[in-house]
Each structure stands twice: as C-alpha cells, then as structure tokens.
C-alpha cells in the first residue's frame, strides 16, 4: 500500500507539473487576450514532432533546445497574422479560429509525419532506473521531466514577479490601454507572451513525447485536460493553474492506481443488486473506469458553483 501511494504521488506530480507547463502558457494568453487558445495543445504536439525529427539527425539534446524555439516562433506568427486579424470579428470568431487551427494542425501533422506513432525515445544516458523502492523502479527520465518542469516553474515565477519584463506583462494583463499610454508596445508584448506560451507547450511536448507517445492524437488527449486545469484553477490565475495541475495530475494517477468499485462500497453495507438490471454498469463502476471522466466532472461542478475557479477573481 505504501509503495502504491509513494509511486502514485511521484507519478502524479510528474504529470501535474507537465500539465502545468501547458496550462501556464494558456492561462497567461487567456488573461491577456481573453482568448482560450484551443490550439495550445497542438503546439505541444508540434514540439514533440519537431523534436522527433531533429533527434533523428542531431540527437535529443539539440531537439530539446531547438524544437521549443521553433514552436514559439510559429506561435508568434499565428498570433501576429492569424489571431490579430481575426480579432476584428469578435471573441467567438477568435475561439472558433483557434479551434479550426487545432483541427488544421492535426491534419498537417498527419500529412507530414503520417498517422502512426513515431519511435521517439528518451536519450540513452537517461535510460536507467534512478532508484528502486519496494521492488519498483523509478525511471531516471521521469526524474528528468520533474527537474525540467520545476526549473521552468521557478524561472517563470522569477521572470513574472522579479523582472521588468514581468512587470510590463502584468501591467498589460490588467490595464492594456494604460500600459500602451505609458509607451510600451502592447501588441508586441501580446505576441511575445503568445510565442513564449507556445514555446513552453512545445517544450512540454519535447519531454513528454518519449514518455507518453508521439502520435497525431496526442494533442487531443491532453487538450481538453489542460482546459479543465485552466478553468478549475481560475481563468488567468497562475497560482490556480499550478494548484489545479497538481490536483488533476494526482487525481488521475490515484484514480487509476486505487482499484475500488461501487460494488465494494455496497458490500460494506451488505447491499446486493440484480446482475441483469439496466443499471448493472452503475453498480460495478470502479475508480479506474471513471478516472477519465473525473476531470470533466470537476470542471462542470466548478463552473456551476464557483465560475471564477479556485483562485480566479473574474468570470471571463
């Protein structure tokens, strides 16, 4: 039991911090432009694919640096020539634009790289078990993911709260017009934040690609989860995104690890049920089974009872 909790905790934190890399960019972009970027997870996918292609020729480490930069540049271009143009048609059009972009990027990825899963692996130096605990191995690559994620988190925190750039970004989030009046190029700040946000997503893709698989559906798998995090944490709140990322990460790993079902609960109370009834699926529901729907349940509950999210202070 102890080892189960220990490993679930560790895995949950790794997943959570990975999700935070995506969610942090998304929530910053949202708080600046008021647009929930549906294509955010697509940039994560692009990061993995770019890194895969680069790793074939130049190795994993070059991909780790170059792929996020490429993705960030693409993000900046999308903001400059796509989103800024669509802005004139209003918010709904912007949302639909990013949705269409997500669809298009998936098709383009299939067009260029094909539909099958790519053999994108972690570098050989990291292919060893870091430590063994109760007979279970903890791979070094996961520790590496953890390290990168924590590094990014600290860097982001320092930049946003301690540097001049962070000051301008925070000002532009709350009072864009006033910031522009003070002589800062707000559209450029927007483009920069969008680009950096996409680069972070790309970096998440680079390090998640070997662990979670590099395939055309990877954006779709993670995309809606990241939305859940941003909404649950509170739209525009970085702290909220961090807490919600860890929460969702732990929720998912623990739900999969702990194999309890409604049946067990009923047996405690000595209730039996008819095996042929139409509700039989309900009585045999187990925790791993409902693991995929837990985040969405949380999302809906939060939106109904606390639309500002856990740490947010505004309602879209």
């Amino acid at each position, binding site marked *: 039991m102890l080892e189960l909790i220990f490993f679930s905790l560790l895995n949950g934190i790794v997943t959570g911090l990975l999700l935070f890399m995506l969610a942090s960019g998304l929530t910053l972009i949202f708080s600046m432009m008021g647009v929930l970027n549906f294509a955010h997870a697509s940039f994560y996918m692009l990061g993995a694919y770019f890194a895969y292609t680069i790793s074939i020729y130049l190795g994993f480490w070059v991909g780790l640096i170059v792929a996020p930069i490429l993705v960030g540049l693409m993000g900046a271009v999308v903001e400059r020539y796509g989103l800024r143009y669509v802005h004139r048609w209003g*918010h709904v059009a912007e949302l*639909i634009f990013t949705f269409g972009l997500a669809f298009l990027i998936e098709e383009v990825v299939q*067009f260029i790289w094909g539909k099958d899963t790519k053999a994108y692996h972690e570098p050989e130096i990291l292919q060893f078990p870091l430590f063994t605990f109760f007979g279970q191995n903890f791979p070094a690559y996961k520790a590496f993911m953890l390290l990168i994620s924590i590094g990014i988190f600290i860097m982001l925190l320092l930049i946003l709260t301690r540097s001049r750039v962070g000051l301008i970004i925070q000002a532009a989030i709350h009072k864009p017009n006033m910031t522009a009046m003070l002589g800062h190029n707000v559209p450029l700040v927007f483009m920069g934040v969008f680009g950096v946000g996409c680069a972070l997503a790309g970096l998440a893709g680079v390090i998640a690609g070997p662990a979670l698989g590099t395939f055309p559906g990877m954006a779709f798998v993670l995309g809606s989860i990241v939305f859940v995090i941003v909404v649950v944490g509170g739209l525009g709140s970085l702290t909220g995104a961090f807490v919600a990322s860890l929460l969702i990460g732990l929720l998912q790993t623990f739900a999969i690890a702990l194999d309890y079902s409604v049946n067990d609960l009923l047996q405690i109370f000595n209730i039996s049920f008819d095996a042929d009834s*139409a509700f039989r699926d309900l009585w045999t529901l187990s925790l791993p089974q409902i693991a995929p*729907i837990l985040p969405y349940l949380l999302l809906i509950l939060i939106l109904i009872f606390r639309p500002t999210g856990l740490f947010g202070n505004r309602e879209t």
Partner: protein
Amino acid sequence: MSEITKTASPVMARPLMKTLLPWIGFFILLLALPNIFSSNVGLYTMNLMGIFIIFALSYNMLLGQGGMLSFGHAVYFGLGGFMSVHFMNYIEDGDFTFPMYLIPIFGGLIGLVFGIIIGSFSTRRAGTVFAMISLGVGELMAASSLIFVAFFGGEEGVSGDRTTGPELAGINFGQDIHIYYLIAGWVFVTVALMYLFSRTPAGRMANAVRDNAERAEFVGYSQRKVRFVSFCASGFFAGIAGGLFALNFEIVTEENLNALTSGTVLLMAYIGGVGFFIGPIVGAVVFTLLQSILSNYTDIWQLYVGILFVLTVMYVPQGLTGIIMMHTAAWRMRQVGALVMPYLRIGIPALAMLTGIAAFLETIHHMRSSVEGDTAMSLMGIEFNSHSIVAWIVILALIVVGGYLTRSQLPQLRDAWETANKPPAQREGGGS
C-alpha cells in the same frame, strides 16, 4: 404565421403566395431529387445530407441565433440516436407497437430532456463559460458512453433493424429510396418548425440576447430563460437528427456523440454561414459533398476541409451564404451581369493556382505514402511520374503564374464591384 411576425416584419402586405413560394419550391425539390440522383451513392449522400441539415440547423439555433458557442452538441445528437435505436429494438422484440417512421420523436424527446437538464445550469452565461461547460459535458458523455455498456453498447455500439415495425401502405423502409422519402419528410417538417421558431417571440428574443444581453434584460426578459428555451429546442431537434441517423444507418456508436461529431457540426454551420437561416443548410450540403465525393479521390480531404474552415473563419466570417448574400444589392438593381466577366477573369487564374496547390499537396502525399518505387500517380485523369522534374515544374508554374495573374486581376474586380453596387442613376451621372 402569428400576429407578431406580421407586425415585426417590415413588409406587412407581403402576399401569402410569396411567403409560401420558397417552401413549395423546397418541397418539390425534395420530391424531385431522387429522380435526378437515383444511384445508390446519390441516395446515400442525400440521406446523410438531410440528417446533417437538421443537425446543423439545430446547432445554429445556439450559435447563430442565440450567440452560444457549443463544443458538445453531438451529445444530443448521439443520445437521440441511441434512444431511437433502443426503441427500434423494443419494436422488433414486440414489446410495444409503434410506427417506425415516428421513431425520431423519441430521439427528440431525450434530446429535450437532456437539454433541460444541462441547459438548466449551462445557459446562465454565454461566451467562454458556456463554451467550456459544453466542452466538459461533451467529454463527460463521450467518456461515459464507454463505461455504461448496457445503454451505449460499448465500442461496437447498438444496432437495430428498421424494417420490423408495422408497415405503412405496404412499405417497410427496407429500401434506400423509402428511407430517403422518410428523411425528406422529416427534413421538411423540422426545417419549417425551426424557421417558425426563429420567428416566434422566443426566437426573436434569442437574437436580442445574443446582440445585447443587458438591453434585453431591461426590456424585461431574463437572458437565462431566453437562452434556456433556445437550448432546449436545439437539443430537441438535434435528437431528431440523431434518431434519423439511427433509422438510416441502423447502428449508433460512441463516435456519434464524441468531440469529433461536435466539431463537425460547428464546421458545417460556420462554413455555411451562421448569420443566415439557410447558412447551415448550405454548410451541411457542401460538407457532405466534400466528405462523400472528395474522399473518393483523395486521402487528405480532411486537410482541405481544415484549410477551408480556417480560411472561412479568417476572411469570410459570414460563410458561403454570406458571399452569395453580398450580391443582393447588385441583384436588386439588375447589375449582377456586370460582374460575370470580372469574375471569370479572376476565376480562371485562381482556379489554376488552386489546382496547382492541390496538385502540390497530392504529389507530396503520394511520394510519402506510396510504396517504395511506385512513382506513377494520376490526378484528374492525368497520369504522371511523381518523382519527375517536369511534373514539379508544371505544378510550380501553375501556382506561381496563377497566383500572379490572380493578383493582377484584383483591382479590376474591385472597380467592377463598386460599379455594380452603385445605383443606376448615379452611374449615368458619370460615376467616378
């Protein structure tokens, strides 16, 4: 038509005949279509079209008329389908007797019930909050459909048999042509109902709430209730579309209520044009044609659909119908004729450029996906070697020359457009 329509309509003295004429035309068109396209593929496509027309129109009750962007509309479509297929099976088992052609009613009802449940909390806000709730509900349902096997049938779905019900004048809906007329009948009735809904006070208030919720509240309407009514009606019609889907294909799977279907309906409505009643109809027809015809010729048709969608969102937010409707002013002044030549002049090089781009994508796709050494490919009946230099020169020439000529024709098109949209009196006075 109701009193309200008459007072609200600017053309009060519009003769009844003129209002009914489009509907009579629509009716005759529905009757005549299977005689023109009588092949199996034609019928299949038209059946799908009919289902998607209802689905897309019901979606537009939210997005176009109510200003609610939904990412989970397939929930009502899929649930309607599952409910209908279950009732088809009850009829087959003899549990109760019910005419098969009315089965979509059950689909509509479950769509309505879920519309009431989900709408009761999701319609409080429009905009991003609504979009997120719809996304969450959509994902929730899609995930649940794999868990609750008794109702959703797991991965293989639930199948039924539409021919087992009581016969209607000797017809048991075994043939495609019968199901076509069944769908056509439902399409006619539901399209008319949805049109009438958009004319009722509830439909009108939905527009008002979409445009300015605060003002609508000052008039005395609760924005939440107005949205709620639209939402429920939309769920009902989506359920009917799902029921027709169940009747047509006799199988409903988890795929029918997942995010992909939700995305498809958004795509259809938006490409067609959400600002017009007939927009989603145009979108459904175009999308089904793309899906069934284009997919016969190319593997990458979804890439084209994606490009078309993004371009529509960026440059033509009014959709395809919007482009047609732009010409009404010129049409009324009988000056559309002046645009034919300019359109031809820009159309031919633009077509060449598009052909070039499509050929470029197809050739690359062929080079990547075909077996090693297989270099022969054919495009539009032209056989060529995908690895030869000549082919690439032709393709690049098409793109570059076509693009250049298209650009060079833009100014004359702009001039012609301005002339065509100028009242005749002004034009005779010298113009400018």
